[in-house]
């Protein structure tokens, strides 16, 4: 760790441990100061490689700084700052520490130059995210967090497996473009790990399952880091993989469809993250400079406006404690400011002109058009219309307008409003001055978003969607339904499979455990008893029997002694007779 270069991520991670020892206002200042200083550090960084370390015979690079990683580090640091401001009012030290660590880990992953440190930081991110979910301390949160952990462990292990395979084949751990190894086991494993992190269906079901369970402030951080760092990794390693295009497109549609069905506010937004990330994945898949620029830009802007939307929904949750759209409504009277800031986010996400979405999403869409993938172009535009429908219209309408259920919630605390304001300002700034963002993008940008035709097309699209929305308003009432998703598999399936396996194994275990008893008790002892019986009855009896035999013979002989002299005479005669006959005949 060369001293002159301080890794911004490390600042956040180590700084977090200082928080519990600070009191009251000094703690608040520190909470803001830490991310701010990290942002400043990132801004001051120039391209180059720093912090190379020799660990277990491997060459680890902690600080590989280039245009791509810089962009992502800016947005991550910025979001950490905004998130911390948003969470100033929360007095649970643990949440802050975890949030900072989470941010630090994301920065770490961005700057990671080799697979090993990337793996280390991504694992750290996974653990931090789980803790964020768990810190909500509701049983639902805890089980959701556990499922999140399991899946990310699986992801982590695939990454580790892939890294090890890659390392054993190439001998180096450098994290660079992998296209040369397309198709190899290592390539697939690493790709799968990042896809899981990027919440690509069917592996992405953890996102809508875990994010709504997090605390109001925690969710803001969750939206940003894990998915976008995965996108960053995909951009760096897997640009131009054909397959990603189709995955991206599918994600876009999948996210929108489920969002429309969804009733829980933050789960709707969570589904929508998947659809937006779909755009980025699709961009990476296309792989042209424009597409990659688009993906990066979209990631940048998406982090900001998605955080803004979550802050809005979080504020409402904070003040009203409600999650379901079906029991919200009529809040515009008491929370006008939140509504306004929320609408900025809504317009940004639906890529309305003068907002950041317009600037970044269109790059990806047009890159699809350039590489004449008509189908993809069509799908992406449809998805963006869907986005405007549910985030832009359905959610605000039912949350703020809709039936007035007499909820008289006040405005959220000041720091939340300030944070939302900052995010909204950023979105507008990028929307109005795209150059700000374009200059930071990894490749030269010669794309002009504000062409009249493009503006008109977008406005037309938005208008039609609005029209459609108001027309079908009655059908779109959110019912308290639970949408089935692939996470059913490991939520129900696994928990069902586990006891069956356990019962079977426990029985086997019991059997093995008892073997020694069975063998010892039944067989050995029974054989021993039978042999003892044999020994006593047969062999001993045989020996005693011989004794008995001699006894009976002697008794028999005794009977011959009748005392009658003539018998003796007869016997003697017989004896002599025999001898005589023998002598005579044997002559």
């Amino acid at each position, binding site marked *: 760790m060369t001293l002159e270069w301080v890794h911004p991520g490390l600042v956040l991670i180590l700084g977090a441990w200082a928080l519990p020892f600070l009191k009251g206002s000094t703690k608040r200042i520190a909470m803001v100061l830490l991310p701010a200083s990290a942002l400043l550090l990132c801004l001051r960084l120039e391209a180059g490689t720093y912090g190379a370390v020799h660990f277990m015979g491997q060459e680890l690079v902690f600080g590989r700084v280039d245009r791509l990683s810089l962009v992502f580090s800016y947005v991550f640091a910025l979001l950490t700052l905004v998130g911390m401001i948003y969470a100033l009012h929360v007095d649970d030290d643990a949440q802050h520490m975890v949030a900072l660590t989470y941010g630090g880990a994301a920065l770490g992953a961005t700057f990671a130059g080799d697979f090993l440190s990337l793996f280390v930081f991504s694992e750290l991110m996974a653990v931090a995210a789980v803790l964020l979910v768990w810190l909500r301390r509701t049983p639902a949160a805890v089980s959701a967090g556990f499922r999140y952990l399991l899946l990310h462990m699986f992801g982590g292990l695939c990454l580790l497996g892939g890294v090890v395979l890659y390392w054993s084949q190439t001998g180096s751990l450098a994290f660079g473009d992998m296209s040369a190894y397309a198709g190899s086991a290592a390539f697939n494993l690493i790709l799968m790990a990042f896809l899981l992190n990027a919440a690509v269906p069917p592996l992405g079901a953890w996102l809508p399952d875990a994010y709504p369970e997090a605390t109001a402030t925690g969710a803001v951080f969750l939206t940003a880091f894990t998915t976008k760092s995965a996108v960053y990794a995909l951009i760096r390693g897997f640009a131009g993989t054909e397959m990603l295009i189709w995955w991206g497109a599918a994600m876009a549609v999948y996210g929108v469809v489920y969002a429309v069905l969804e009733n829980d506010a933050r789960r709707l937004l969570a589904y929508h993250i998947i659809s937006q990330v779909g755009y980025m994945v699709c961009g990476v898949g296309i792989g042209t400079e424009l597409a990659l620029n688009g993906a990066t830009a979209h990631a940048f802007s998406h982090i900001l406006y998605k955080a803004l939307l979550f802050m809005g929904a979080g504020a409402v949750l904070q003040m009203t404690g409600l999650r379901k759209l079906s029991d919200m409504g009529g809040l515009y009277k008491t929370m006008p400011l939140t509504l306004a800031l929320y609408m900025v986010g809504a317009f940004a996400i639906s890529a309305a002109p003068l907002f950041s979405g317009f600037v970044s999403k269109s790059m990806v869409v047009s890159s699809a058009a350039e590489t004449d993938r008509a189908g993809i172009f069509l799908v992406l535009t449809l998805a963006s219309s869907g986005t405007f429908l549910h985030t832009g219209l359905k959610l605000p309408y039912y949350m703020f307008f809709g039936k007035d259920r007499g909820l008289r919630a006040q405005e959220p605390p000041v720091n939340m409003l300030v944070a939302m304001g900052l995010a909204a300002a950023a979105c507008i700034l990028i929307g109005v001055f795209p150059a700000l963002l374009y200059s930071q993008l990894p490749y030269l940008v010669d794309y002009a978003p504000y062409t009249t035709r493009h503006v008109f097309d977008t406005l037309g699209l938005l208008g039609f969607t609005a029209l459609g929305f108001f027309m079908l308003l009655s059908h779109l009432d959110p019912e308290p339904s639970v949408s089935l998703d692939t996470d059913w598999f490991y939520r129900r399936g696994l928990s069902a499979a586990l006891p069956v396996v356990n019962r079977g194994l426990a029985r086997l275990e019991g059997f093995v455990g008892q073997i020694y008893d069975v063998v010892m008790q039944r067989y050995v002892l029974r054989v*021993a008893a039978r042999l*003892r019986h044999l020994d006593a009855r047969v*062999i001993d009896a*045989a*020996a005693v029997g011989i*004794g008995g035999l001699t006894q009976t013979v002697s008794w028999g002989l005794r009977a011959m002694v009748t005392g009658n002299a003539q018998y003796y005479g007869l016997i003697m005669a017989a004896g002599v007779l025999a001898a005589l006959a023998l002598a005579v005949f044997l002559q």
Partner: protein
Amino acid sequence: MTTYPILTFTTFLPLVGAAAILLLNQRLARWIALATTVGTLAHSVPLYLNFDKTSSALQFVEAVPWIPSWNVTYGMGVDGISLPFIFLSALLSVLCVAVSWTAIQMRVREFYAALLVSETAMIGLFACTNFFLFYLFWELMIVPMFLLIGVWGSAHRTYAAVKFLMFTLAGSVLMLVGLIALLYASGTLDFQALAHTTPRLSLLVQAWLFVAFLAAFAVKVPMFPVHTWLPDAHTEAPTAGSVILAGILLKMGAYGFLRISLPILPDAVQLFFKPMLVLSAAAIVYGAYVTLAQTDIKRLIAYSSISHMGFVTLGIFTLNRSGVEGAILQMVNHGIITGALFLCVGMIYERTHTREIADYGGLFKVAPIYSTFLALFCLAASGFPGLNSFVGEFLIISGSFRAWPWLGAMGVWGVALGTTYILWLFYRVVLGDVRPGLRGLRLDLDVREVATLVPLVLLALVIGFYPESVLGFLRASVTQLLGVVSGPGEIAGRL
């Protein structure tokens, strides 16, 4: 050699002692017996010290012509194989006198006289160098043992004594016939001459002689089918009787194989060694199984002796160096351990007057010193490495693997069962909760009893860690013995 006839003196000193006891009154009997046995032991020590380990020839030889017409001389001499046993007999006799110090109350003089006569017979048998004397001491041994069991035994002593007599006599009668046939066939009865100088007998004669001697030795060892007298004899014999019986009497049979069958009838041994191996393996496993099922402690240890002696015969008939050396070592070990076990059981029987395992339990809490001794001897009996019978079993099983691998497996199975029944006995008797019956009695050992057990403990440890002390003597004689009997199969050609 030394002009002073040390062997004759060692052999017949106990006889003199016995006569002295019978003449003097009862109170002095114990002390004279102790003095005589200790004297004999002292006498056998110089034997041990200046014995020349390198030569396999007989040492301390004494020869006096006795019956010229039968070419029989009164010959005494000792070589590597018989020396350990002489020392063991002397030692065990001392311990027997010590252990029956308070145990024997009635007819004390006759008891000690019988004990001393048996000692003479034992030492004489191992020290003699011709068949005639061997037979004479063999027969002499039966008489005192019969008396010991018959007079001072417990409940069914007469049955056991008569059974012992019948079995042993049946065997030795056949030996007598063999002896005479041998004399007739080869003209002399001297072991060395028979083994080396006289021309080898024809296979048929050798076979018949082998069978005749087998009968006598098999009953004594005891081998599998003819073993049923041993448990009865052991259960009924007094402690001293069991110690002598297990310690030395069983070894006379095996010693017979080594001294007579192997060197003099080598071709017959080649013919019969496979069935003998099977019999020994059967004895090991069968003995072990039946031991498992016993409920009476002494009977259990008796059956365990059958299994252990099965090992000895297994070792002898592997006919390769490590097997035979292991067998002889195991004979010494078995003498020590089983002798010690019987001493322990005798001591506890003296206090509780019951031999049923069910009546015992939790001895550790009531009699800690006794339990530690018993623990040590049980470990030794189960072949714990570092104690003496591990080395013996190691050599025997290694030899049997070389001769016939399946035998090795049976041997190992025997060892495993051996560990089970000994530790199970120990578990039931010593661990567990204290039986009500045992609570009142003053169970722990007094100084005399500890003194009797300590020498055996020392021997077990010394042989365990330094078996060279016994093996050193055997090496030369065993090589010479095996030279006569060419070993059957040397798979790995090791050693």
